[in-house]
């Protein structure tokens, strides 16, 4: 666990302004190390992994070995220990691409708000030769300085000591910087000699006015006996390293009982981890664990989140070689949850129910940089203690200790605010209920969704800005008359084909309002309002007074709950109407109020009660204000005038459904489908109405039917997923997530 501390450091150890958790490398290592030994088999998938890791039973002895090791040499040993999975991982990391690592680091740093113009400038230039001047507030100076240290790894150029203004670093800060830079340097300069690394680190420390005596000797254990002893002495209080579990407990009580030194523990704790850093870390992980409870596996969350960050960062690298590297594949697999490295399990068979709880509890805590780990660096010790005393007693003990360490009031307060015992109770309860059961797959799926969302994020944002997204492969490009073909296909009800033909048309004639309009209608009937809006906007551009376009835009924006936009277009409909245009004063369009628009439309309806279209627009308006009864009346009036308008039947159905008259809605949808069998939107709406009545099996069939006709109907996929879970058909979730329509159609025929 010391390994984790080294890589992540306390918050005070991080570059000021960041918290240690914003360092994906550290956090990843953290997640990995915190979760290493249960699934050894999976670990083998790590590229460059050469040796196998310890067995569960071996874990104790391994820890003992670490414990017995001199604290001074612990760092190296942790790093180079052939059996430590952590070093496996880091070696794999090292062997891939030095620059990528440094870039990842820079990337992370740059993701935060720029610390200062210098940093920004410097972070982007890849030339490490230039050493910028450092001035400004100490935090900035330190930050830019550390940046330049990291940057120096790009070319392996010796890092020169730089005069810096007085930074006023505390002893704790210095120690952290010392520890971390030493470790980081070994990653950056893995291909360099020990002397070179030491020179680099020493140059850094010299500039920061950090005593590097200790530093100098630490990486070279055994060479300076005296210094090593001195180191042990000075660190002895801080790290209860060389004690076995019981010894640690004893020491803990001893220290508590020692009246002369009541603050030492708290002090050293603070020194080691930083007061605020600890609190924020705790809070973070506390919050994270809330989420975990749902997902069931904190391990997967932490690891996947970290790896996702890393994968994302690494994916920025353009080098095709790197993109194809096993390492990147590994990381992205991890991030998708395909690979899970589980906790360093200590699960003796003798565990009672309490023990079981403790293990779960331990698992929770280990993965995120939790106080449990921070509290006692080799956390398995903690586990031993837990098992020995039972969790409640342990908590009591901790609470007592906590009161002793009242120097650090802040975190004590924070801690009590979090209602530890409540939480513990809750957690125990959860475990008891088996809430953590097989929901981990659920979690992995959620994660997949998240990644997909990320991938399509750009597309989505384009669409929501009203940018039309064309299909990649379009067989109708080059067709002599794609508009005619599109109209023909639309009439036959082949909506997705019609979309392609019409896309070809508007590619050929970008100003063809009719092409865009029909394309928009095809998308709306295909249950894709985003694309419908995008196409209709283009139609509107080409022909700003087209009433059908204005109505369609009003409807689509109403569907998307976009009040203001919907109102604008519906008002436009009135304004450009040859008969009612006089009712709509143009000046009103600057500040539209629903009440005004509704009043005007009512006037129009009174003027021409036989005009079905006015009633339709009025019905849409009432949908906007959610006066569904009035909307239903309007649509029913319109249907008497236009009984064969399938989209009108669907509008009536949707309105009835939204005012929870689902049975009536289904009747209306059926009407629409009788008139237009390939009306995807009506099929999807059918599914919604069945789902809202709790008839999930039925709803699934309708969703699948809709999707069979338009696999791009994202809403239907999302609803299908919900219905599958509600109908306890989790067995089909995989088919849903992989969008395997063959399987779904076979399973849910209509």
């Amino acid at each position, binding site marked *: 666990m010391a390994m984790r501390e080294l890589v992540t450091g306390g918050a005070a150890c991080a570059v000021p302004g960041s918290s240690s958790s914003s360092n994906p490398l550290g956090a990843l290592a953290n997640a990995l190390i915190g979760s290493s030994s249960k699934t050894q088999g999976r670990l083998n998938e790590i590229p460059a992994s050469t040796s196998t890791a310890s067995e569960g039973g071996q874990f104790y002895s391994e820890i003992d070995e670490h414990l017995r090791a001199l604290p001074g040499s612990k760092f190296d040993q942790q790093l180079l220990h052939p059996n430590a999975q952590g070093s496996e991982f880091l070696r794999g990391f090292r062997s891939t691409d030095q620059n990528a690592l440094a870039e990842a680091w820079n990337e992370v740093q740059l993701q935060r708000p720029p610390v200062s113009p210098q940093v920004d400038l410097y972070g982007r230039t890849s030339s490490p030769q230039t050493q910028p001047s450092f001035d400004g507030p100490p935090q900035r100076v330190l930050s830019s300085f550390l940046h330049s240290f990291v940057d120096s790894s790009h070319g392996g150029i010796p890092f020169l000591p730089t005069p810096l203004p007085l930074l006023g670093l505390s002893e704790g800060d210095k120690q952290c910087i010392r520890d971390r830079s030493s470790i980081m340097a070994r990653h950056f300069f893995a291909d360099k000699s020990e002397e070179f690394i030491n020179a680099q680190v020493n140059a850094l420390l010299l500039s920061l006015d950090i005593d590097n005596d200790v530093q100098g000797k630490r990486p070279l254990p055994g060479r300076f006996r005296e210094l090593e002893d001195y180191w042990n002495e000075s660190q002895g209080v801080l790290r209860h390293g060389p004690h076995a579990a019981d010894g640690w407990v004893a020491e803990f009580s001893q220290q508590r009982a020692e009246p002369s030194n009541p603050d030492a523990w708290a002090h050293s704790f603070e020194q080691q981890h930083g007061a605020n850093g600890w609190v924020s870390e705790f809070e973070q992980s506390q919050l994270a664990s809330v989420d975990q409870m749902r997902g069931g596996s904190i391990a997967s969350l932490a690891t996947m989140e970290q790896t996702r960050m890393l994968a994302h960062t690494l994916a920025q690298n353009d080098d095709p070689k790197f993109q194809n590297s096993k390492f990147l594949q590994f990381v992205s697999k991890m991030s998708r949850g395909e690979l899970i490295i589980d906790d360093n399990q200590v699960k003796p068979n003798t565990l009672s129910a309490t023990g079981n709880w403790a293990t779960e509890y331990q698992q929770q805590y280990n993965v995120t940089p939790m106080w449990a780990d921070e509290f006692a660096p080799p956390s398995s010790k903690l586990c031993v203690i837990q098992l020995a005393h039972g969790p409640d007693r342990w908590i009591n003990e901790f609470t007592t200790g906590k009161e002793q360490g009242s120097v650090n009031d802040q975190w004590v307060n924070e801690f009590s605010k979090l209602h530890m015992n409540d939480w513990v109770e809750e957690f125990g309860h959860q475990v008891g209920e088996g809430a953590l059961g097989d929901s981990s797959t659920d979690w992995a799926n959620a994660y997949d969704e998240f990644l997909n969302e990320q991938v399509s994020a750009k597309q989505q944002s384009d669409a929501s800005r009203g940018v039309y997204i064309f299909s990649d492969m379009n067989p109708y490009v080059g067709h002599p008359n794609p508009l005619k073909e599109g109209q023909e296909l639309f009439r036959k009800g082949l909506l997705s084909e019609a979309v392609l033909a019409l896309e070809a048309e508007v590619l050929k004639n970008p100003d063809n309002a009719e092409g865009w309009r029909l394309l928009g209608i095809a998308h709306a009937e295909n249950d894709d*309002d985003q694309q419908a809006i995008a196409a209709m906007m283009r139609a509107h551009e080409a022909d700003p007074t087209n009433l059908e376009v204005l109505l369609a835009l009003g409807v689509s924006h109403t569907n998307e709950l976009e009040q203001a936009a919907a109102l604008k277009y519906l008002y436009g409909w009135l304004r450009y109407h040859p008969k009612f245009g006089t009712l709509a004063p143009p000046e009103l369009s600057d500040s539209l109020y629903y009440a005004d628009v509704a009043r005007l439309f009512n006037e129009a309806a009174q003027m021409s009660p036989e005009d079905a279209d006015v009633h339709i627009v009025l019905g849409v308006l009432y949908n906007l204000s959610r006066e569904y009864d009035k909307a239903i009346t309007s649509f029913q009036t319109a249907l008497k005038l236009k009984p064969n308008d399938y989209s009108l039947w669907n509008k009536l159905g949707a309105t009835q459904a939204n005012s929870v008259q689902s049975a009536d809605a289904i009747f209306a949808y059926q009407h629409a489908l009788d008139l237009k069998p390939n009306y995807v939107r009506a099929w999807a709406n059918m599914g919604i109405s069945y789902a809202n009545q709790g008839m999930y099996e039925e709803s699934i069939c309708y969703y699948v039917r809709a999707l069979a006709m338009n696999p791009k109907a994202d809403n239907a996929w999302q609803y299908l997923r919900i219905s599958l879970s509600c109908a306890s058909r989790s067995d089909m979730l995989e088919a849903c997530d992989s969008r395997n329509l063959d399987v779904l159609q076979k399973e849910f025929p209509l």
Partner: protein
Amino acid sequence: MASNAELKSDAIFDLMKHFLETDEGKKVAKKVNLVYQFNIAPKKLGHDEVAYTVDLKNGEVKKGAVEGKPDATFSFKDEDFVKVSMGKMNPQIAFMRGAMKIKGSLSAAQKFTPDIFPKPSKM
């Protein structure tokens, strides 16, 4: 009555309100049996929040904070709440991204899933 500055979430809560009057809605309420408060911000989390009470003990939805203590309180941006309630965004993901903040009991918060919301139909 609608105004230009209305939240999208309003429509969802309205639908929820009607939904809870149906048999299926009552079933869902009975299953969850908790009182939630939602704080919906138009643009930025925590700013100009509008509170809604979703009382799944008594099957009621109303604007305004919960009288007494809610079992869990969620904070959302308008857009994100719509995404979560329509199943476009998983609550876990919303939480992870910081798009959703939770206060109160954990087991209560856990029962907040997209399937307790009715789905809006499209014209």
